């Protein structure tokens, strides 16, 4: 069971890594943002599977922190892309 979960974590990670291409190449700022968010979501999924498979303490908390700060970072990206001050 644990191995199946780890395999799934690996596959999710690979899928998210495929999105890395868009994060790095763009072309638009929105493409980069969305790909970075995909990587964050993929990371959360992989971490939760690893936590279930290994029972390592605190891994769920890492996923929790990523989930909160990922949403926060998307706000910061949008603000920065259109220039601060919310105009």
């Amino acid at each position, binding site marked *: 069971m644990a191995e199946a979960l*780890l*395999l799934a974590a*690996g596959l999710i*990670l*690979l899928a998210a*890594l495929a999105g*890395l291409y868009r*994060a*790095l190449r*763009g072309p638009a*700022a929105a493409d*980069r*943002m969305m790909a*970075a968010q995909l*990587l*964050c979501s993929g*990371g959360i999924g*992989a*971490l939760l599977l*690893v936590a279930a498979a290994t029972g*390592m*303490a*605190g*891994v769920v*908390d*890492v996923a*929790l*922190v*990523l989930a*909160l*700060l990922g*949403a*926060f*970072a998307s*706000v*910061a*990206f*949008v*603000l*920065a*892309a259109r*220039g*601060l*001050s*919310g105009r």
Partner: protein
Amino acid sequence: MTLLLDLILGLAVVGVAVWTLAVRENFPAVIGFVAYGLLLALVWVRLGAVDVALTEAALGAGATGVILLFAVVRLRGGRAEIDAATPGPRQRLAAGILCGVVGLALAVAVLSLPDPAPSQAAAVARHLPELGVANPITGVLMAYRGLDTLLEAVVLVFAVLAIWSMAPDRRWGAVPGPVFPVQSNGPLSLLARLLPPIGIVVGIYIAWVGADAPGGKFQGGTILAAMGILAWVAGLWRLPPVASRGLRWAVVAGPLAFIGVGLLGFVFADGFLSYPPAIAKPLILLIEAAMTLSVAAALVLMVAGPPEGRRA
């Protein structure tokens, strides 16, 4: 199978790092930096260092990424000044060589460690119950390497002072950073109302759980800071002016509590930063709580930047 995944993850980290250094524009470079921090957090989990993974996720990818993003926005339109301050090719080459040599020396040092590597881990594990703290990382950071942690705490105060010192005289005492208009509808308004109540609970939880499991003041404080910044950019929370006493106390509360407890060690224990065993855990929790507040305040102020609003 695992080896293949590790290899892919490792190559991705190095690849994103090289790409982030090589890219010319600022915005994509910050995206690369955040992606790099995310991948690095996964690597730390893979290595079994969950505490470090939490710190990397919160401070490396989250806080530093946002500070860099705000810096990118502030740098727009300052082409001449940026070019004047950009190091020339020779200076960059020298910095590159220096980094390469340091990296190589570290790699050689790590690879030539005797097996088993010399370690104080067993001694720490033996004495950990005296502190009443179950997380060995927190035990080491607060007790055995307390001075290092104290200096890290003081650095935050200096960072805020350095940023405030950029303020022009006529702005001194004003509100730090831009003032954002109130968002009464739209996605930002929704997120800034929904996320902070959850985030504040999670931030306090991460700081509190640090005594017994991965977590701690820096990670918890970062989440609290992120929630404050979210409310600030949505116009729901106004930053206090830098002249505010409450704000200044919030920034120095952690280091002051740390130094105060440290000095009490001269009277009640074996010296500076030594805790009387009977109340070691309450003292450590007191410092951690004060530090969580100070880390959060300092990070918000670092993102906000020097006072630039109207004088309060």
